[in-house]
């Protein structure tokens, strides 16, 4: 991979990380209500996948979706304002942390229901195919979603109709507190592709280059009209399931530390250093990202809460 490309991906991953760190801080201060699901540790998946897509390709995201949205091109400030519940948010503050739609960059919908976007992705794929377009749709979901009926019904249909969909499973090893070993009967989630006669590939989900390359293969296959693929990106969330969860009652500190040694950002940084990128340049990137996040916070604080009338106006069809 070209240094420039990797540098762009590294920068985006850093933005995702800093965004979530800021969310944790603001949540603790009581500025973000409700719930949020931190993406920290999984950045290489969102960035690797979205870097392999065109702007006019679609993604459908899930409850742990801030990273997917920002990686696909939604400005951080719109996601942040949504978390604040402000009208400047990507869904005018009506959706919340688990919902986002930004059509200009191909973010169609973000669902809060595990597995919920999989059959919808199938429908998007159908629409693309019926319109004879060469776009693709990506559905992001976790390991837990692969045990839902929606996963099996949706992928069977997409495979049957050879639709241009890429099903990206972020296997972070836990569905809330339950480990994959206690919830998935298959040896690997990727093996579930066999049941639908589509490629299933295990990918190092902490290596942005690996994710990018595997996605590109799946995208090319989809654009050629050969149908969907299943990617199992193995990764790890450093934090709990939700922002309220320490994530320590069902995992050991040792396990978390082991995964931190495989940190996606450290890996991309090391690669960049080996490619001759100067430390100063990386420091500058840090500063740029920090200012994006600061701007997002300022924007969210200054934005108003939507009024009842605005909410009802959103209902007009």
């Amino acid at each position: 991979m070209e240094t420039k490309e990797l540098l762009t991906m590294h920068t985006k991953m850093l933005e995702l990380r800093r965004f979530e760190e800021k969310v944790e801080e603001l949540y603790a201060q009581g500025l973000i209500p409700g719930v949020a699901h931190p993406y920290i540790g999984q950045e290489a998946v969102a960035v690797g996948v979205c870097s392999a897509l065109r702007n006019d390709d679609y993604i459908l995201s899930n409850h742990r979706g801030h990273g997917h949205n920002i990686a696909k091109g939604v400005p951080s400030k719109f996601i942040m304002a949504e978390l604040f519940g402000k009208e400047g948010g990507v869904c005018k503050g009506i959706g919340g942390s688990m919902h986002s739609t930004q059509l200009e960059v191909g973010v169609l919908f973000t669902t809060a229901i595990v597995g919920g976007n999989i059959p919808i992705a199938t429908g998007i794929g159908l629409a693309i195919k019926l319109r004879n377009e060469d776009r693709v749709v990506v559905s992001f979901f976790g390991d837990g979603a692969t045990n839902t009926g929606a996963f099996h019904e949706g992928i069977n249909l997409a495979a049957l109709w050879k639709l241009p969909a890429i099903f990206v499973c972020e296997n972070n090893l836990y569905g809330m507190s339950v480990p994959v070993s206690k919830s998935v009967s298959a040896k690997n989630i990727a093996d579930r592709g066999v049941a639908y006669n589509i490629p299933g590939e295990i990918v190092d989900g902490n290596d942005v280059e690996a994710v990018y390359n595997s996605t590109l293969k799946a995208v090319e296959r989809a654009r050629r009209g050969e149908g969907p693929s299943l990617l199992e990106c193995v990764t790890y969330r450093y934090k709990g399931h939700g922002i309220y969860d320490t994530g320590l009652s069902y995992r050991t500190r040792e396990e978390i530390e082991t995964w931190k040694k495989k940190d996606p950002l450290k890996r991309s940084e090391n690669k960049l250093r080996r490619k001759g990128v100067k430390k100063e340049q990386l420091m500058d990137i840090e500063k740029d990202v920090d200012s994006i996040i600061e701007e997002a916070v300022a924007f969210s604080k200054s934005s108003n809460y939507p009024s009842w009338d605005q909410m009802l106006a959103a209902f007009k069809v």
Partner: protein
Amino acid sequence: MAEKREITYLQAINEALREEMQRDENVILMGEDIGIYENIFKVTRGLYKEFGPERVRDTPISENAIIGAALGASLLGFRPVVEIMHMDFLNECGDQLINHLPKIHFMSGGKLKTPVTVRTQYSLGRYIGAQHSQFFPAFFMNVPRLNIIVPSTPYDAKGLLKTAIRGNTPSLYLEGAVLYSTKGSVPTDDYTVPLGKSKIILDGEQVTIVTFGMTVPTAVSAAEKLRDEGISVMVLDARTLSPLDKEGILKAVKKTGRLVIVEADCKTAGAGAEISALVAEEAIDYLDAPIIRVASPDVPAPFTPPLLDQYLSNEEKIIKAIKQVIR
């Protein structure tokens, strides 16, 4: 004056589908056995032949994915009309039907529209057992922003289906299987019937019957019998339960001062309970007698004909209720 002819309820639905598919290429059909088999009652007769497998898509037995896929296609501008073979099978697609389809427009801050029509039929009265007979529209009345359409005549079946397909909000369109062979007058010209507007089928002075779907013809025939006995009954067909024509119902109730609700669904927390609550909240002072609901009892539908006949909201029960309410 537009030309009219007599066609069946089933033909009316078939015509609405065909005409909307001819009118707008974004209208596509998906469902189980709707293609080459033309639906279990032949509602989709001729459509696969006319429009081909791309626009009339047979699906696997995957009800949740059928609704989800329709929803997905609707986000890119299609107007899918999907079929769930029996209303009972809506239970298979709750997540997409309840937790996604009617909420996405709202959750996206108004950015997305989901013009999906979900057609299904309720087979109550056909002696096919408890798991293929349940008519439970009130379940879905508690889901905001999901239209619930319950036509009783060929005219309404056609006009309401067209409205649903052309609209920008999702609809649940409930066909009464026992109504498929009933005939009625339908214009040849294009027309639509608006949602949220009830229809007075028989005008009357002493009692108002509010009903919908499969019990409409039963209520009308009961009212006609009572007319011969000198009792004047108004029959109002709600036509859609969501939106509910509150104004029309209240006006009809205020006129007669007596209300009998006739419904095919179970009594407890059925659609009639909502209608009763509406009248109690907004027109109780106009009532000269307590409201009576003629509904299915709170048990699953039995199979055996003598028991099912006893189970249904039949003419005998309606007549008894009317006589009680005017006593």
